[in-house]
């Protein structure tokens, strides 16, 4: 991977890289989608790469518009969703639980 992707002014994201990123993001992209996305992402990345080097090391990062920290409330029990409400949107329910496909590498 390049040390500073923006410095060269040329960033390319390959079809293989898009496939890898889609894998990380847990999206099954079709072949057609990979063909379509790679050049589009290259254009977007070339446009945003211009910010590389804009801010020096002395500039602190801002992650949030408001400088709020440690927002707490009293640790008391309050009304919350009932199990029925919490499960109301579930694709599948088994008694009072979310029913999900197998999560291990063998038949459940």
């Amino acid at each position: 991977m390049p040390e500073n992707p923006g410095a060269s002014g040329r960033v390319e994201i390959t079809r293989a890289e898009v496939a890898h990123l889609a894998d990380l993001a847990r999206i099954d992209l079709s072949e057609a989608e990979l063909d379509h996305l790679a050049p589009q992402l290259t254009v977007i990345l070339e446009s945003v790469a211009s910010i590389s080097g804009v801010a020096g090391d002395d500039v602190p990062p801002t992650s949030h518009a408001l400088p709020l920290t440690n927002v707490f409330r009293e640790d008391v029990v309050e009304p919350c969703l009932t199990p029925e409400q919490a499960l109301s949107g579930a694709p599948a329910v088994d008694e009072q639980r979310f029913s999900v496909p197998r999560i291990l590498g063998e038949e459940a």
Partner: protein
Amino acid sequence: MSAADTDGLVRRSAADLADALAAGETTSVELTQAHLDRIAAVDGAVHAFLHVDAAGALEQAAAADERRRTGSPASALDGVPVAVKDVLTTEGLPTTCGSRVLEGWIPPYDATVVRKLREAGLPILGKTNMDEFAMGSSTEHSAYGPTHNPWDLDRIPGGSGGGSAAAVAAFEAPLAIGTDTGGSIRQPGAVTGTVGMKPTYGGVSRYGLVALANSLDQAGPVTRTVLDSALLHELIGGHDRRDSTSIDQPLPNLVDAARRGAAGDLSGLRVGVVTELAGDGWQRGVMARFQESVELLVAAGAEVVEVSCPSFVHALATYYLILPAEASSNLAKFDAMRYGLRVWPEGRPDASAEEVMRASRDAGFGDEVKRRIILGTYALSSGYYDAYYGQAQKVRTLIARDFDAAFARADVLVSPTAPTTAFRLGEKLDDPMAMYLNDLATIPANLAGVPGISVPSGLADEDGLPTGFQVLAPALADDRCYRVGAALEAALLQRWGGPLLDRAPELSTNGATR
């Protein structure tokens, strides 16, 4: 009541309707029905709504009438109907965020904004269309089809909140709620000739707002007049302990600011014109209306200074790194396990949870959402993090500093809201970067968390389409947006001899789908 009277009712401002309700000249049931009739007549062509709740709205209207009858209205706007962008959860009403992933999902709870609307007695007409998960500037990325601009049905209504803006512009609702992450309230306002306000970040609760980018998202009012925005803003704003980023201090007096502004005296106010938010590439008619509006503010007593915010030229790039990074994390929750769409890989009844997850996310997300998830995953990847996301966060600091310096010299900053008028549906769909450029002037406010309003400034000569004037103020000084916005609105109203929307073409009211 005759059809003409009903038409008159839907064209009135929310403030007028509230006065009429208070005076007993109309009822909430009557005016809610008038808006439902209008929706039935024109929404086939406009497609502002994803879901209309006629029965629920009329029930809430009847309750509002009962409160008015017994002299105990729940708020000044009790009984005035409202439309809600489909990104805010509504208990018992579908909430799709314009995505297939949430098709048919009925949330078990209300967003705080929605709870406040209900408590204040505003009947909820329905949920409005939007770009999928609020990603877009045209509403074309809705999985349920685009919304059409009431000024020209072949053009976009802006985005992502095109549904809310179009509903208000087409007189389907007097009030609507939008959300603004990079301009999704203000830019639709500009291109539909309506008013849109993005409050100070943290000024309106995000609880129940399905997050696109947590550090940028902000809900706010979408209306036809500045005073209506102020009324709605005061109603939905304020501290909420269910949102840890909510500001724990009282809102400034917004309605009062709008009324003072409408009186037209801006003596002593310093208005900063931002050098970087104009120039080459900005549509001629947009710039012409902007210059005229600045002159009107001067005529009202304001002093104009030119201010430079050099880091703003990097705002778009900063935004398109920070937003996808936050969005890719946020949308990880759509994993097909606890709610939302679950799709099994074809012919694989024994598929694992992870395989189901991959198939569901491919089937459920549209192109733009996939683009941004991949982009965000890239920006957050080891090896690229410092160069992209880390840099973007630093440039965000520079942009906030530019605002600080500019607000030391000016009380408000102004610019055109969007560089162009509404473009044609389909025109930029396959050129994401061209689409992103539409948010050039609105994005800096989200990055710094400052408030901004878009007010109609007229029609561009070359295409006869609406243009918007943006007023930005320092964080927590939302009242300045209302004061200046109302002053400009009053001056323009006088010049035009009536509201801009009076010049919009009549929509066919046969209810047919286009």
